[in-house]
């Protein structure tokens, strides 16, 4: 009888640890050893990265030349531009018109329930913003995003290790996995996504079109 409880205890512990990891926003950055990842494994990692990058929680704010954030995904119904005629301007934070932070206010890092109310403007522990123009993901193919992300001229001049660090430090990105308010989170987990970025990097960033 005692043994029957072990899987339940293990599951409960695992869920608790996972919940704590989300709450703490801690990410381990541990790339695989150089030469340990095949091209095929790298492409598999890329495939998962693309699932994340093209997911509405990420792509809706990666709109390229357009300064209009998008509303799309299962929790938004029909794909459309952000309501209220919102424009992020060249500043990408709406400084020319209406600051993103007017509604997407900045919350304390330790406040976990800030986004529990459906339809309220999401808030994170840093200023809300649209991604840079060159990081154009919305509506783009796996080949296009792959090329954009591995090219230093369009990825913020970052190595894969630096992209993993960027994912760790920029708290607005963490929101994608804990969006609240009935919104569908990005697939996998932040840690799994970071692991995939590192794996893809060690495989020398292969793309499907190579």
């Amino acid at each position, binding site marked *: 009888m005692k043994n029957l409880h072990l899987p339940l205890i293990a599951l409960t512990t695992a869920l608790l640890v996972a919940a704590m990891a989300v709450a703490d926003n801690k990410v381990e950055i541990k790339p695989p050893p150089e030469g340990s990842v095949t091209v095929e494994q790298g492409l598999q990692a890329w495939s998962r990265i693309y699932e994340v990058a093209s997911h509405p929680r990420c792509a809706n704010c990666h709109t390229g030349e357009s300064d209009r954030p998008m509303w799309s995904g299962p929790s938004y119904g029909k794909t459309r531009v952000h309501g*209220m*005629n*919102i*424009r992020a301007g060249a500043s990408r934070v709406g*400084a*020319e*018109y*209406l*600051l993103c*932070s*007017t*509604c*997407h*206010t*900045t*919350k*304390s890092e330790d*406040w976990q*329930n*800030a986004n529990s*109310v459906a*339809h*309220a*403007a999401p*808030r994170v522990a840093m200023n809300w913003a649209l991604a840079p123009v060159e990081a154009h993901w919305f509506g783009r193919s796996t080949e296009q995003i792959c090329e954009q992300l591995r090219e230093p001229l369009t990825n913020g001049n970052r190595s894969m290790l630096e992209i993993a660090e960027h994912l760790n430090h920029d708290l607005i990105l963490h929101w994608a996995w804990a969006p609240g308010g009935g919104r569908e989170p990005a697939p996998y987990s932040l840690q799994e996504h970071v692991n995939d970025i590192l794996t893809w990097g060690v495989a020398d960033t292969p793309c499907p079109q190579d």
Partner: protein
Amino acid sequence: MQITVNGEAHDVDVEPEMPLLWVLRDELGITGPKYGCGIAQCGACTVHINGYAIRSCQLAIGDLKGREVTTIEGLGSPESLHIVQEAWIDNQVAQCGYCQSGQIMQAASFLATKPDPNDEDIDAAMSGNLCRCGTYPRIRAAVKAAAKKLQES
């Protein structure tokens, strides 16, 4: 905790997650900012934090972190109206008036950073403030009139 509203310091005993709007209206009796939707969809609760427009229903009092709050009550005074308030009266913008304090606070913040806006700029800055009476043409006219006065002053 202590907060400064319209230049006056107040001590309030509230939970840090209480929205600023609740503190203003229910704790301090400052009722210019209105409750419309509670989720940053209408703009009726707009106030200034260090001069920038913020939907006060979305900012937890614990996240104010010492910054100064200005409400419509502190924007101007009956003896010395803010230029945007003057323009609102000149253009007889308000109908029922419920959204107007939010509209005026948004317009004042916008014009402080963009004193010479065109119609497209005004629409982009003001579209997050809803008006069920549909006074939008008069709002735009008042913002343009206020901008002109700001440039002349």
